[in-house]
């Protein structure tokens, strides 16, 4: 269980995240949506302890995140930020194996190799494992980064726009993979998504942020409604239903 209470972050005069409180359900996929600059990534960074919050508290499994030991925290929660271009010459396997660092500090044992192998095959990277990552396409690199996070074997997995750089087909594959992490492996996945329809189709819960504040949150059904989305994006969003799933149309406004 993850609990965010009254968290605020300022950069100089600008309030980036303003008094946000929300519980995050364990064993579910939560998608974080909202316009650009709403503070989604900043919130994610605070939750994953990459930056400190100015005020408020964040609890992971009942204990405040900043009081966790570094090594222990890294076994509980992993985070993948927007993949910046990686220029280091590492092989895919080497990169993925770094996910085992919190457990073995670089001295890989046979169990590590098993987990690395299964993470690689889970993301369809077995064939590519000896390729240097600077020769991969954007989508392949993205999958390699996810494999590394998977290798870290944490209960909580936080992702910042994992669909970046991915075409439609890989986007679907990525969301299916995340879904199966939740359904098959019991992980808690929290992901920032820009494509609202991916969020609507795959997530359990949706957290909507706007101008640094929590705009609304709840299960997908309650959130994917015209009243919520129109105000969230200041757009005219049409909701259609197809085979029991809701989709948003907003392309012509």
């Amino acid at each position, binding site marked *: 269980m993850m609990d965010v209470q009254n968290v605020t972050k300022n950069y100089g005069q600008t309030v980036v995240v303003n008094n946000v409180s929300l519980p995050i359900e364990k064993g579910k996929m939560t998608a974080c949506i909202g316009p650009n600059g709403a503070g989604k990534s900043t919130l994610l960074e605070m939750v994953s302890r990459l930056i400190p919050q100015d005020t408020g508290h964040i609890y992971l499994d009942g204990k405040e995140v900043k009081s966790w030991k570094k090594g222990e925290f890294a076994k509980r929660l992993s985070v993948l930020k927007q993949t910046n271009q990686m220029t*280091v010459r590492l092989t895919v396997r080497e990169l993925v194996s770094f996910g085992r*660092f919190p457990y073995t500090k670089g001295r890989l044992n046979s169990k590590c190799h098993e987990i690395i192998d299964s993470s690689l095959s889970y993301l369809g990277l077995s064939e590519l494992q000896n390729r240097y990552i600077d020769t991969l396409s954007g989508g392949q690199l993205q999958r390699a980064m996810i494999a590394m996070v998977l290798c870290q074997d944490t209960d909580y997995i936080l992702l910042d726009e994992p669909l970046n750089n991915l075409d439609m087909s890989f986007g679907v594959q990525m969301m299916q993979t995340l879904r199966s992490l939740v359904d098959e492996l019991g992980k808690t996945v929290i992901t920032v998504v820009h494509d609202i329809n991916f969020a609507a189709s795959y997530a359990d819960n949706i957290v909507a942020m706007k101008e640094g504040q929590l705009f609304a949150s709840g299960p997908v059904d309650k959130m994917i409604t015209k009243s919520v989305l129109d105000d969230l994006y200041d757009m005219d969003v049409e909701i259609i239903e197809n085979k029991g799933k809701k989709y948003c149309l907003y392309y012509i406004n």
Partner: protein
Amino acid sequence: MERIAQKTQGNYKWYMIVMLVALILISIFTGVSDIRLSNLLSLTDTQKLVLLTSRIPRTFSLVLAGSTLAVSGLLMQQLTQNKFVSPTTAGTLASARLGIVIAVIFFSHSSLAYKTGLAFVFSLIGTFTFILFVRTVKLKNAVMIPLVGLMFGNIISSFSTYLAVQYEVVQNASSWLQGNFALISSENYQLLLLSVPLLIFIISLAHYFTILGLGRDVSLELGVPYGLLEFIGITIVSLATTAVILTAGSIPFVGIVVPNLVSIKKGDHFQKVLLPTAFSGALFLLITDIISRTMIYPYEIPIGVVIGVVGSVLFLYLLLRGESE
């Protein structure tokens, strides 16, 4: 597949070791005084003296200095995630030199301890200044960083030169400007031994430095104390650079050229390239030193000049290569 890869890896390792041993022998038996491997057992007293007080310490220093400089460069590249940062291009060398000049001027009985201490403190400050600068001023082009660093180093150097001229210690100071192994004897190379524990320390922390190469966020995400390790890394590099510069003078480019050439062949996994880089650094200095001793035999060109020429050509090649990618 895997097994073949391992086998070539093994061959490669042996190849390096054979090369190193061969070059060490060539280095020891190169020089004006005629000493040959074949009459090693029937040396005259003078020959023995030359061998023990000059030749062996020199070769030994070359090996240590080469591997130390190469590994220092590799470590700095890992810490800054920039392939072109090294003691030469981050102001470390120049700052250490300033420290020595100040020690010579203001502590005129300058014992080695003063020089070492001041050189170390200055190189530490200089390197941190540069790294903070690089972090604050986000340079768009990675290639700009080493060029800015070279400028930074030159500004510090000009200040050292000014001080040296003002206080009439130019001769003394210029001996630190140009790397030279000719003056090394069994009396004065001990400081370089400091690099042995430093290298061992780097090896023992190698798994952390490997992660650091992926940047701050990934490091923190994996539970690695980024700031602390960055500090430790820079301290090690400054100490190692100080040890080398006080023994042999400033030797440019080794820290950039060697790690980059190794990386082209073997990738960027710090833990895996650490030893090959150390080996290659030693080889690089042994070769350039042999060149500097034989080009105008029986005289010597300072090794700094030879490396300046060879290194800058290789550096330009790497810069242009980086640019085209």
